[in-house]
């Protein structure tokens, strides 16, 4: 994050934390290079396995703290799928649970100072959003045949209005993966960049003791406040991503408005 330039001044770039670099050596980043992104993704998967497998291996009727976290997460997502997408969406619950756990753990691991937020890259979130988009579209056609096109034809609207609405619906349908992925990546990137911008102001007292005595405590306070906000945003964005997946799934299973 902080790098020495010209050997003298300390230069601080708020976007440096998002640079993808190889974990071993300094070579170019290829398709199969092990980078810091790979490392943090593997770490978040290991954390999920640790939480879900280890905590439920010795099941107790009075759950331990770890076990109740795992049970709460399971119950939370299961209820969300049931409420939003309906009972017949429950066969797809494992996929939605996987998405939620991966996003929430990537977001929270990214909050550790000095770590890397994998979900702040559009490349990562776009793959997840495209997977959801393709899966939902294919599922819609498999389940309903051509009746899935009814999702664009709003039968409750007046007849002359329907073609115009259908056009809008088609556009908004194909824009879904874009907004779905950029929402998560944008929120993560913006929040972390803001923290680093304030972090750049924090060592001001080292440069000038006059204005620094005012700026440094204020920026440290701001970092603390924004960090707390980021903890909230990390969870809410994971929640929003999964709930939108449920909404899209509902459209695929019940295309008629």
């Amino acid at each position, binding site marked *: 994050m902080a790098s020495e330039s010209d050997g003298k001044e300390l230069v601080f770039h708020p976007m440096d934390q998002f640079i993808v670099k190889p974990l071993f050596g300094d070579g170019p980043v290829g398709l199969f290079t092990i980078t810091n992104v790979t490392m943090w993704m593997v770490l978040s998967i290991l954390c999920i396995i640790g939480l879900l497998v280890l905590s439920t291996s010795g099941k107790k009727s009075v759950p331990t703290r770890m076990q109740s976290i795992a049970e709460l997460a399971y119950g939370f997502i299961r209820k*969300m799928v049931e*409420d*939003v997408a309906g009972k017949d969406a429950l066969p797809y619950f494992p996929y939605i649970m996987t998405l939620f756990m991966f996003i929430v753990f990537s977001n929270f691991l990214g909050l550790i100072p000095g770590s890397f937020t994998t979900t702040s890259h559009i490349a990562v979130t776009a793959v997840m959003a495209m997977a959801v988009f393709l899966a939902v579209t294919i599922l819609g056609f498999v389940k309903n045949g051509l009746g899935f096109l009814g999702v664009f034809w709003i039968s409750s609207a007046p007849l002359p209005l329907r073609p115009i609405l259908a056009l809008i619906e088609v556009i908004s349908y194909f*824009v879904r993966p*874009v*907004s779905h992925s*950029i*929402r998560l990546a*944008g929120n993560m990137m913006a929040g972390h960049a803001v923290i680093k911008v304030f972090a750049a102001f924090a060592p001001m007292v080292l440069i000038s003791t006059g204005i620094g005595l005012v700026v440094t405590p204020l920026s440290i306070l701001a970092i603390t406040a924004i960090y707390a906000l980021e903890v909230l945003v990390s969870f*809410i964005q994971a*929640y*929003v991503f999964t*709930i*939108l997946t449920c*909404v899209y799934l509902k459209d695929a299973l019940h295309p008629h408005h």
Partner: protein
Amino acid sequence: MEGDVVQMGAYIGAGLACTGMGGAAVGVGHVVGNFLSGALRNPSAAGGQTATMFIGIAFSEALGIFSFLVALLLMFAV
């Protein structure tokens, strides 16, 4: 005067595109404010509607994200 006029235009456009985020902020505030005023009138019905509120937030936020996307495109793709 030196420099690239196209580059300058792209940067100014990127800055202007960011004003769209203000619209998203108004939209999200409107959604949450109306949810809260409804929830305070009938608190027993509020719990079941939080998911709907988040869906509404997500949809109104999406349009702010498009302005962010336009800004990014102007910065890095034009």
